[in-house]
């Protein structure tokens, strides 16, 4: 595009106004994706401007990548082409909020923190608090289907997104779903947009179901000598009537990354102050509700912990529980910050498959002599993170490949992907894993939404 820039820029400025187009080197560097920079960054201020920009790009066959907080732009395969970034942070309004109906309609550029603040005034939430929550926009969270620890209790975006408006790859504004909590009118096209990584169109509005923010909360940490104990504990919780908001299992390294020690030290109920063993696991459980509900959880959780031979069982002091939960939620972002080569494999696994799968994954990192950390989120999403020292970079690609193979070979583990890795690794390993049999149907969907192939080309599986 660099050669095209000269004639494209004036036309974009004419189309959107010069204040909505930037092309200085500093700005362009901020929007780099896997080593590619756009020729211009657009800041549309309305849905119509998004449609105009995409329509222009479609006519000129310019490749577009939509962006929000830019915290998750590294996820996905490298773009095959990249001409324009469309920054959606100017579309940052909560458009409709009917607190009495527990529904809210928002533009994609609303930062998650801002949405939480607005909903918080009515003691409500959208349960999508994920990593990078201080910068992430709601559009980006939905477009990447980021996994919140709260998925344990509330499900994922597909369970509470009521409707979406998009601009398709040919510049047309279209919507599906609606803003009421129950709706079977027309095709649920909005479900396709969740996790589409900008390859189908630009999300311009999302309607959510909201949930009450519970009155009282309590967080518990149990520690175990091994994964068997942690899994026995989480299984007991799963098969009980308890209704925790989140259950996160962290291995020793992940616990250190999430800085659980302070919380462990703050108040240990059974008085045997004990740091987490290096090979051990910690289970963080958070519950909410009336005091009677919280007390019941405390009682049963202590019992389950004991039955699972927990080394410690602690009630986290209220003064640190917020920070603790934030650290657990931010586990991936903390790993990426600390280790420049951090490589994150994400695998969906059925509960029965987790133990063997994690054992296999740990074998891989041991064999390649790379330190690893593991978090089991929301009962079945495994984040397995390689934390290479600088001298381990050469072994990283091999280890990542082996992790994918191990995850693919396990019964009850599905569709692993390398969510994060150094850009260079993407040339050696397919981050999306091998093609699945439904890929042909996905290609059909892609062609409908983006007939000119301009939306984040190449970023998704099999070159979509």
């Amino acid at each position, binding site marked *: 595009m660099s050669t095209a820039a000269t004639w494209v820029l004036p036309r974009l400025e004419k189309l959107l106004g010069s204040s909505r187009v930037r092309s200085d080197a500093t700005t362009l560097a901020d929007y780099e994706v896997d080593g590619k920079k756009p020729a211009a960054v657009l800041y549309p201020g309305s849905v119509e401007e998004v449609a105009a920009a995409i329509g222009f790009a479609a006519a000129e066959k310019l490749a577009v990548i939509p962006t929000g907080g830019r915290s998750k732009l590294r996820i996905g395969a490298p773009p095959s082409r990249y001409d324009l970034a469309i920054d959606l942070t100017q579309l940052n309004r909560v458009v409709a909020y009917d607190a009495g109906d527990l529904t809210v309609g928002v533009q994609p550029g609303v930062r998650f923190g801002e949405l939480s603040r607005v909903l918080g005034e009515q003691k409500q939430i959208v349960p999508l608090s994920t990593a990078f929550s201080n910068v992430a926009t709601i559009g980006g969270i939905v477009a990447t289907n980021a996994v919140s620890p709260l998925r344990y209790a509330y499900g994922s975006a597909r369970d509470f997104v009521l409707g979406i408006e998009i601009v398709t790859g040919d510049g047309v504004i279209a919507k599906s779903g609606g803003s009421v909590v129950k709706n079977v009118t027309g095709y*649920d096209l909005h479900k396709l947009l969740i*996790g589409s990584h900008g390859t189908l169109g630009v999300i311009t509005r999302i309607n959510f179901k909201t949930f009450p923010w519970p009155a009282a909360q309590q967080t518990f940490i149990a520690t175990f000598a091994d994964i068997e104990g942690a899994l026995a504990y989480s299984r007991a919780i799963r098969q009980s009537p308890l209704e925790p908001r989140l259950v996160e299992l962290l291995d020793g390294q992940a616990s250190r990354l999430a800085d659980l020690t302070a919380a462990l030290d703050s108040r240990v109920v059974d008085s045997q102050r004990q740091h987490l063993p290096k090979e051990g696991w910690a289970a963080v459980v958070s519950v909410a509700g009336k005091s009677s509900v919280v007390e019941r959880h405390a009682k049963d959780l202590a019992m389950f912990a004991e039955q699972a031979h927990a080394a410690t069982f602690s009630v986290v002091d209220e003064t640190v529980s917020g920070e603790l939960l934030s650290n657990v939620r931010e586990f991936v972002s903390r790993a990426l910050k600390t280790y420049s080569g951090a490589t994150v494999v994400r695998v969906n696994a059925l509960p029965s498959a987790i133990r063997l799968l994690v054992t296999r994954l740990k074998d891989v990192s041991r064999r390649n002599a790379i330190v690893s950390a593991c978090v089991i989120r929301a009962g079945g999403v495994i984040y397995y993170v390689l934390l290479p020292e600088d001298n381990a970079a050469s072994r990283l690609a091999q280890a990542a490949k082996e992790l994918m193979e191990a995850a693919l070979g396990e019964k009850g583990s599905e569709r692993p992907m390398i969510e994060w890795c150094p850009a260079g690794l993407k040339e050696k390993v397919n981050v999306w894993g091998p093609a699945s049999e*439904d890929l042909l149907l996905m290609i059909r969907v892609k062609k409908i939404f983006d007939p000119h192939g301009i939306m984040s080309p190449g970023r998704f599986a099999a070159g979509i």
Partner: protein
Amino acid sequence: MYRKRQEWCGCVDRSKATIVTQDAKLDATPQIMDRKLIGDLEQLLGTRAVLSQAADLQLYEYDGSVEQAKPDCIVFPKTTQEVSEIARLAGKYGVPLVGRGAGTGLSGGAIARHGGIVVVFSRMNRILDIDYENQRAVVQPGVVNLDLTCAVEHAGLYFAPDPSSQKACTIGGNVAENSGGPHTLAYGVTTNHVTGLELVLPDGDIVRIGGKTFDAPGYDLTGLMVGSEGTLAIVTEITVRLSRKPEAVKTLLAIFETVEDATQTVVEITARAITPAACEMFDALTLRAIEAFVHAGFPLDSAAVLLIEVEGLREAVEAQEAEVTEACRLHRAREVRKARDAAERDLLWKGRKNAFGAIGRLAPNAYVQDGVIPRTKLPETLRYVDKVSQKYGLRISNVFHAGDGNLHPIILFDQRVPGQFEKVVGAAKEIMKFCVDVGGTLSGEHGIGMEKNELMPLLFSDDDLELMKRVRDAFNPSGRLNPGKILPIGKGCGEVRILRTPALTATPA
């Protein structure tokens, strides 16, 4: 028994309804079933698995809706492979292909609008796998909804979607229509419980989408398929999530002197974010009909009742029960009764689940509506429904999922009275339009089918519908899969359809 009526068109802005689909083409050239195709099907499936005699076909002209159309032949496959072969034959002969479960649907989803082959799944009714540890089951589409729950309840599990027809309706049908039910208020509709599907595409290809876990990377094709009413593919296997039965359940019956008080209570409960598992409302007309039918002790002199269920952890249920009771009292509930035991609870629910049948006894004909509104608009919407009732001189009974704003006004009438059915259509249209105008939608759980496809432009723009059509055409390029459903056909007002007047056999959710 049969009558003609005009297409619903007064409420549709025809200037917008410009989408001409391939359905129209099919419509223009009615299919005449080739004897040779029947022969091929018989060879494939055996003669006993193929019906093509007029008397047999007549049984499959209807479902639970007010619609009717004659299929050309009925087939009963036993395997996915057979479904695939059937699809290939349908392609070869260029005839429509329509899936059918128990035929309890309420929007004509299982009706062969343009004739063709109806694929009935009654022989594909096996539960293929129950994975207790991971709370998953793999079922064939013909498995009856309640049968799955019966198969797993010994382990404390159940299948959460609970349409009122759950004793008869099939999980395949639930997937096609994205069915709901009273308890979807807390647990979500069918789509929230389906993790993976096996599909037969119109060209006969067999593809698996999704899996046993939720939210795999990639486009959520499963989410697209559920609720697509058999227009994108034929589902031949379904992986569902099983839910854990709650530890405690409390069922309350709150009795009100006015409909207004009852609806305000629902607003209050929602705003307080109490989130009961179910919150159903019946008005006086419904109450009297139900009581005469089930004798559950529903008060005959009240204006409305709310049937509210809270469930979950014992301690949470106690707290919720107190909050619900307080909300009811605040809005002048005359009485809040508590079901003392399972038998009492079952009796109350029997009243609810048989409400449509009971109402059927009030008039020769009844037409069930299905609209959704924001819950904050519940009082004004019921006032509006009452106005419509008075305007048209038609009795309208209200029994519905108040907790999620899913209305089911039932219009009572007598088709023998000249002109009355036209009034019913007019009243139904006005109610639907009001739902959309206050920010709601055309269907909460019954589907669009051939009942409301011409109303879609009330809610969606040309561009919205064009995108839906393109998606439909991408999966169903020849338009042979369940033609004439969901999307407007875009014909003029002059179209005359032959319709069966509303039957009393409907057992909606």
